[in-house]
C-alpha cells in the first residue's frame, strides 16, 4: 500500500498467462493519455508488471506471496493471456518461471484478494487463440470458456468489490480500452451497469466496428471487394464481421489513423468469445444460396435481402468500379458547382 502525493494509490498487479504479450505491447501505444500519464494522473501504482518493472526472480515471488497473504492491498489484478488447465487439469503447460507452480494456481490465489479482477484481452476473457483447434492445453478465460460462464474462476466468482471479472476483450485490446478501464476503476466508477452481457466495458463494447467504417458507401450499395486489397465492402465475400462485431475500432482508431478495415482486411470480430473458431476461413464469407450467413446485427433477414438487391441495382458506376480496385480510380463528380468559363 502506498501513497502518491498524500493520496492512497490504486495498486495494480499484472500477470501474463498463456498469451502473446500483445496486449501489453498495444497498451504501450496508448496516447492521450500515455501509460505514464495515466499512472501519474490517476495515482495508479504498478506493484509489478512483467514487461515494465525492475524486480525479477525471487524478489517477485516474495512480492506475490505477500499480496496473496493480504499484506499488500491489491486493487486490480490484471491478467493477460489464457489460463491453461492442461495437461489433465494440472496446469503444468504453464508454470510461472522460478516458482515451479502452475500459473493458474497463482491466479486463483491472487484473484481471491483482488478488489477488481480484469481480463486483458480475449484470451484472458474467453480463452482466445490459445483455445483454437483441438485445445490440447485446456485453455480458457478467467470466467468464461468461449461464451459459457465458468472458466478458471467459476461462474459465481466475484472480486472483493462484488463484480465479475471485467472482460476488456480484443485481440489485442485497444490501448485506450485498457487505460480508460483502469482510470475508471481507480475512480471507483465501474459497476454492473457499465458492463455488457459478456462483462465487457460498455464504453467501447456498445458500438460496432461498422460505425465509422470508411467503406460505408460500398456497404450501402453492396459494391463488394472480390479480393483482399480491393477497397469495396468486405462483408459479402471477404468474411468481414464489422456489422456484427462490438467495438469502437473505426471511430476511436488504432495507432493514429488505423483499423482492420482501413488496413485493407476484414474485421474478424476479435472482441467476441470463440472468434478464433469462426467455422470458416477468416477471410471468406460463408453463404447459403448466395446470402451471407452473418447478417448485420439487429437486422431482419428479409429486409437485408430486399435492401441488398435494391441497392445493388442502384449502385453508381463509380462505386461499382472502385470497389474492385486497390484505390479509387474514379473520383466523385462535382455537381452544381462546376467551374464556369
Amino acid at each position, binding site marked *: 500500500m502506498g501513497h502518491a502525493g498524500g493520496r492512497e494509490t490504486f495498486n495494480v498487479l499484472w500477470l501474463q498467462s498463456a498469451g502473446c504479450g500483445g496486449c501489453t505491447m498495444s497498451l504501450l501505444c496508448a496516447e492521450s493519455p500515455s501509460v*505514464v500519464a495515466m499512472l501519474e494522473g490517476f495515482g495508479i501504482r504498478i506493484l509489478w508488471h512483467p514487461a515494465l518493472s525492475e524486480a*525479477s526472480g525471487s524478489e517477485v515471488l516474495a512480492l506475490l506471496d505477500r499480496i496473496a497473504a493480504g499484506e499488500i492491498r491489491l486493487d486490480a489484478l490484471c491478467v493477460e493471456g489464457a489460463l491453461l488447465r492442461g495437461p489433465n487439469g494440472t496446469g503444468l503447460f504453464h508454470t510461472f518461471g522460478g516458482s515451479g507452480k502452475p500459473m493458474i494456481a497463482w491466479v486463483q490465489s491472487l484473484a481471491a484478494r483482488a478488489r477488481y479482477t480484469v481480463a486483458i484481452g480475449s484470451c484472458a476473457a474467453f480463452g482466445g487463440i490459445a483455445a483454437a483447434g483441438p485445445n490440447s492445453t485446456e485453455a480458457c478465460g478467467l470466467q468464461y470458456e468461449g461464451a459459457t460462464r465458468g472458466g478458471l474462476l467459476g461462474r459465481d466468482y466475484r472480486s472483493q468489490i462484488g463484480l465479475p471479472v471485467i472482460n476488456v476483450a480484443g485481440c489485442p485490446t485497444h490501448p485506450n480500452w485498457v487505460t480508460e478501464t483502469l482510470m475508471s476503476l481507480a475512480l471507483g466508477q465501474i459497476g454492473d451497469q457499465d458492463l455488457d452481457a459478456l462483462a465487457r466495458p460498455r464504453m467501447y463494447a456498445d458500438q460496432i466496428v461498422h460505425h465509422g467504417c470508411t467503406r460505408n458507401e460500398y456497404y450501402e450499395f453492396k459494391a463488394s471487394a472480390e479480393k483482399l486489397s480491393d477497397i469495396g465492402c468486405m462483408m459479402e465475400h471477404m468474411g468481414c464481421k464489422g456489422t456484427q462485431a462490438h467495438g469502437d475500432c473505426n471511430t476511436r482508431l488504432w495507432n493514429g*489513423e488505423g483499423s482492420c478495415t482501413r488496413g485493407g482486411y476484414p474485421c474478424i470480430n476479435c472482441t467476441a468469445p470463440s472468434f478464433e473458431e469462426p467455422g470458416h476461413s477468416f477471410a471468406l464469407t460463408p453463404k447459403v444460396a448466395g446470402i451471407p450467413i452473418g447478417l448485420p446485427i439487429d437486422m431482419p433477414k428479409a429486409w437485408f435481402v430486399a435492401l441488398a438487391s435494391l441497392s445493388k441495382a442502384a449502385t453508381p458506376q463509380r462505386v461499382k468500379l472502385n470497389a474492385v480496385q486497390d484505390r479509387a480510380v474514379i473520383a466523385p463528380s462535382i455537381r452544381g458547382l462546376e467551374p464556369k468559363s
Partner: protein
Amino acid sequence: MRSVTIGPFNRVEGDLEVHLDVDDGRVASARVNAPLYRGFEQILAGKSALDALVITPRICGICSVSQSMAAAYALRDAMGLVVPRNGELATNLILANENVADHFTHFYLFFMPDFARATYAERAWHSRIAERFRAISGTATAEIIPARSQFLHLMGTMAGKWPHTLTLQPGGSTRAIDAGERIRLLAVVGQFRRFMEHRLFGDDLERIVGLDSERALDDWRSEADPMSSDFRAFLHVADDLGLSAMGRATDRFMSYGSYPIDGKPTFARGLWDGERRELDPAAITEETSHSWMAGPTTPHSPFDGVTQPDMDRPGAYTWCKSPRVAGQVVEVGALARQVVDGHPLAVDLARRSGGNVRNRVVCRLLEAARVTLAMEEWLKALRAGEPYCSHGGFRGEMRGRGLSESARGSLGHWIDLRDGTIVNYQIVSPTTWNFSPRDAQGVPGALEQALVGLSVPADVEAAVGVQHVVRSFDPCMVCTVH
C-alpha cells in the same frame, strides 16, 4: 557445487527460468527452460492455408509482424507468387517499423533499467543512470513511450493496427498508400529519426552507421560527455563493467537475410564463423532430445517436424526444441545480421571480442539507425498508381519455406499444404535458436554456453550479470515455444 533456479525473468517477452550450477563463484553449467507451451503448431494443422496469417502473428505480440512476414513468405514460396515492387517496399516498411520499435523498446524498457539497480549504487555513474533509466519512473520512459507510439503510427496507416495485422499477404500488402499518406509517413519516420539523433545517439544517423571499427566507436564515444546521449551512457557503463567480456557464446552467427528488394535481401543471408559462408536452408534441423516432446530425437528437417507434448520424456527440461544448422549451434539477432551483412563495425567487434553483452547491444542500435535510414528511402521509392499485391491459389500438394528476420533473429516457417489445407506447420523462432537446450550430443545452446564462466556473487539469485547476459539476446519466450 550449488544448483540454483532463477526466475521469473521479467523484461523479456514471456516466461523464462534458468537453472545454474555454480562452482567457486562461477557458473559451471546452465540449463534454460521455457515453461509455457500453447500448441500453435497443433492449432494450425487442418486450417485453411491463409488462416495461418491470422493465427501465427498471435504467437507473439512483440514479433507479431515478423510472424506474419514469415507466414506470408512461406505461402508465397508454396504458391510461387511474384510480388509487385510496391508490395515488397510496403511489407519491408511494416516489418522495419516493428523491428526498430522492438530494438528501441528493448534498449530503454527491457535492458537499461538493470543498471539502475541498487547493486550498482557504488559506481560513479549510478545516480545519473538511475535517474534516466529506472524502470517506469526514469526520465527516459516518459520520453520514449510517446516517441515509440508516434513512430508506430506508420502501422496504423500501412497495416491498420499493431500488433496483429492482416495486411501482410503472400502477394504483398492489402493497403495501397496514396500521395498524402506517403508524405505523412515520411514525417512520421523523420520525427522518430530526430528523436534518435537528439536523445539516443546525440549525433546524425549517418555518422553512426559510418562508424567502421571498435577504435572509431571508442573515439566517437570520447568526443562528448557520457551523459550527452543514451548510447554514450551505455558505452560508458559497458566499459566500466566490462560488458564486452561477458556472455560470449559460440561466435558462430546466422542470418536469413532481411528486407528484400527485387528479391535480393538488403541485409545479406549467410553464416559467419570468422569468415562469411553460404547458408544452405536445407541444412537446418530440429531435434527433441531434451524437450518435453514426443517424436524423433534425431535431427530432422522442420518439414518433417512433429509437435506432440510429452512431459515424461527422460532427460527433458524445457518445451523448447533444439535447432541446429549442419549440426551446429548458432547465435542469431542484430549482431549476427550485421556481421553476416559485413558491416565493418559489427565485423570488427566480432573479430575482437565475439558475441557478448556489449556487442549485442551496440549492433542492435547500429541496426536501428541503418533501418531507419532505409525506411526513408523505401517510402520515397513507392510508386503511385502501381499495384501492391498479387494473388494466387492453392492446388494439390504444396510446400513452402518462409525465412524472415525479427528484431531478435532468424524466424522460419515450414508449411505443408494439401488442396489449400494445412497438413503440417512448423515454426523455428529466434529464441529457439538462442535459448535452445542441449542436443543429442550434449552440446548446450547459445545462452547456455554464454552463461558458463560468468562470475556470480554468493547470493546467486541476485546475480545481475545473469540478467545482463539473458537480456542481451533480447529473448522472446512466447515465440521460443509456441
